[in-house]
């Protein structure tokens, strides 16, 4: 509880901003969904068969997994608020459409007959009789939609639209329960508050509702225009995947670019959930630069020619191939890589290493009968994971499969004495672990380097030089240390980045 309060106090500013984004995205989506679904439902009441078809369609739309929908939207509309709102509108259609349709089509036919017999026009009948009678059902549909939207809007964080989801994603990544709770509780509270407001609005008079509606619309329109007008013109967008490491890196990129090209403004979009989203965004020029691993490029972003699939490659070869294929296939520029290799690693407690004189994985095989490993499920099943270890090193230990974050607690509690991990994980530093050298080069190479789209590479040639200053720098140990600063010591990524640049004399203090 105390931790939660502390986190809240620390991140109040961020939370308010996220809340604002969350509310904006949710309400805009709700309004759009209402403007589509309610008139549509009113129109199809007369055409029963068409209504059935539309109900089916909206139901099917709702079954599309939200991640898939976001993925499909990125190539069409890019990243950010637009695809998030489109996805949310799609989900909100069903409850609103269904309830409006049911609310109106289930009105007692004798009331319809009475309205006709009194010479009401279609419009008058709709506004004086049908809508007022159907209103409670329609409003309950709108409430359902809103609760759904507010919950689903947490996914908007995955595609750079911000909102409370960014807290949850960050919390999951940093194993910080307080952050997750902060995001989740805020989102739940938001749903409850708005749902209550909508329920209360049922008692308001139609005219008051209409005025409220118009105020909301004008507010959003104003907000939108304000942002458009204020958006800086010469802005480079640098994004990063979820986690402290990309966050620190993009802050370094920003500092380096702004130092050498003062006329350029850099906007940062940290904590993107999915690699594929980010890569699409880069190709769409919604994002201009982001740090990517050479291994990831070959594995999932480009098509590797058949002849070269499955070959063993040195770090240098991996990078060169990735660079060549990115240029050929997507016309993207891949700058020089940094030193560290963020790949799988095996880690043990420092005392354990000293006691058993462990330096390499080969050393480990000599004492393998006394080893119990806590491995991530995926690692156990991969050919470049435990299976490869068995084949290449003849390693054979007792294995417990564990959630990635649990492994570290397990080794700290001495439930296991060997874990897999990534070579720059902050936990290595946090729990005082040492990594064992992959002396037979089993693990694939994952070297980070800036990936730039063509537009920015052509327009700002000096950016290459700025970012290449990092080439060959940052060791695994340094990266792990910086991750530790952010994740455990709660330093801001911007500060950690700047501290590193200063120490390396890459940052010149303004005179």
């Amino acid at each position, binding site marked *: 509880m105390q931790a939660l309060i502390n986190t809240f106090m620390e991140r109040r500013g961020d939370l308010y901003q996220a809340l604002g984004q969350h509310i904006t995205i949710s309400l805009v989506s709700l309004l759009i969904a209402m403007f589509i679904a309610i008139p549509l439902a009113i129109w199809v009441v007369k055409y029963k068969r068409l209504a059935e078809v539309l109900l089916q369609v909206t139901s099917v739309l709702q079954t599309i997994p939200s991640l898939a929908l976001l993925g499909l939207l990125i190539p069409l509309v890019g990243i950010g608020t637009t695809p998030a709102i489109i996805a949310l509108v799609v989900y909100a259609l069903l409850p609103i459409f269904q309830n409006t349709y049911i609310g109106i089509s289930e009105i007692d036919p004798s009331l319809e007959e*009475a309205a006709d017999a009194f*010479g009401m026009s279609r419009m008058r009948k709709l506004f004086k009789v049908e809508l007022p*009678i159907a209103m409670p059902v329609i409003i309950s549909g709108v409430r359902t939609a809103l609760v759904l939207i507010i919950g689903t809007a947490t996914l908007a964080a995955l595609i750079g639209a911000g909102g409370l989801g960014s807290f949850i994603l960050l919390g999951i990544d940093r194993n910080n329960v307080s952050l997750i709770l902060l995001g989740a509780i805020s989102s739940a509270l938001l749903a409850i508050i708005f749902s209550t407001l909508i329920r209360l609005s049922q008692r308001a008079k139609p005219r008051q509702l209409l005025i409220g509606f118009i105020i909301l619309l004008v507010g959003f329109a104003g907000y939108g225009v304000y942002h458009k007008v204020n958006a800086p013109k010469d802005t480079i967008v640098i994004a990063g995947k979820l986690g402290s490491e990309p966050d620190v890196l993009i802050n370094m990129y920003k500092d380096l670019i702004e130092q050498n090209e003062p006329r350029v403004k850099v906007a940062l979009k940290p904590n993107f959930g999915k690699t594929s989203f980010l890569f699409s965004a880069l190709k769409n020029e919604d994002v201009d630069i982001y740090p990517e691993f050479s291994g990831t490029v070959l594995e999932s972003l480009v098509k590797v020619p058949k002849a070269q699939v499955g070959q063993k490659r040195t770090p240098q070869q991996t990078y060169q191939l990735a660079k060549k294929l990115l240029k050929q296939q997507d016309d993207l520029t891949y700058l020089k890589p940094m030193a560290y290799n963020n790949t799988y690693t095996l880690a043990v407690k420092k005392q354990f290493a000293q006691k058993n004189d462990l330096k390499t994985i080969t050393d480990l095989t000599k004492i393998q009968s006394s080893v119990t490993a806590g491995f991530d499920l995926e690692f156990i099943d991969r050919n470049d994971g435990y299976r490869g270890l068995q084949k290449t090193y003849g390693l054979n230990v007792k294995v417990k499969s564990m959630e990635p974050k649990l492994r570290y607690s397990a080794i700290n509690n001495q439930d296991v004495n060997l874990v897999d991990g990534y070579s720059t994980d902050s936990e290595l530093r946090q729990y005082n672990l040492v990594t064992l050298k992959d002396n037979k080069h089993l693990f694939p190479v994952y070297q980070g380097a800036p990936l730039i789209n063509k537009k920015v590479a052509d327009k700002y040639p000096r950016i290459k030089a700025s970012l290449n200053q990092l080439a060959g720098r940052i060791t695994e140990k340094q990266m792990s240390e910086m991750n530790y600063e952010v994740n455990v010591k709660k330093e801001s990524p911007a500060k950690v980045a700047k501290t590193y640049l200063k120490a390396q004399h890459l940052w010149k203090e303004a005179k």
Partner: protein
Amino acid sequence: MALTAKSGQPMISLQHIQKKFDGKTVINDLNLQIKQGEFFVLVGTSGSGKTTTLKMINRLEEQDDGDILIESKKVKDFDLQDLRWNMGYVLQQIALFPTMTVAQNIGLIPEMKGWNKQKVAATVDRLLTEVGLDPETYRSRMPSELSGGEQQRIGICRAIASEPPVVLMDEPFSALDPISRNQLQDLVLMLHQRLHDTVVFVTHDMNEALKLGDRIAVMSKGEILQVDTPAKIAQNPANEFVKEFFAHSNTELNLFETPLTELVKLGFYQKSSASEQLATFDQATPLTAVMDQLSREKAISITQNNRAIGTLTAQNIVAFLKNSC
């Protein structure tokens, strides 16, 4: 809609009307003349086509062949809204609009016609008073707060609010209890006498037809068997069917089966509990069951859930019967 017909002239004429449902002819060559200012009743069993005939007059149904004339103009030549604004309509299901107050329901057509607010409000109050409901109490109630009989009183007010020359009533009282039905029959007769409107009234109840109609048309299977005044139909039924129908109707309204609840509701009892010891009856007991007791005693005590709510005397019963006849 111009109103030029004098009393006794044909107001509504149905000429060679044919109506099909799903290709099946339900009404074939129906001819009928309804005079201005008359209370005309269409009576028949269910499926006789009487409601369909009624609904063709305000075009809720369209005939497949033949013409319907109001005075001398075909209904299909009228502006639909104009036609309907000048024809009141009362439904069996009552169908008050549930989201509107009593006053809004009654004032609906005057408001659509563009009357000013004061005139609408005054009309609403006058009509409420006329149908025996206190405007202060009822004006702003919602339909769901009213009993069936009260609801249909409002339904009638709604139909006649703008004093239309024609009022159509589709079995308006068949869903009501016998007492309310009786009271409302009296009410529509009273209103008809004041307004001199042309009423077309559909019912399956011969008693009701005989009580209300200036003239009655007996329908069966889409045909009109006989059109005449109640007395003439009674004396000279056109055929066996009419005779049968007429005979069955003679079962009088059995007022003596009325539960005590009704008398309590209508105020035919004393609220004060009597000082002496009386025989007690639950309020669900029918009148017949307490007659015997009341032939010997002055009064009985009415109870609800074993709690005395008042006393009933023979005098009360006589007053009730007089009111119901």
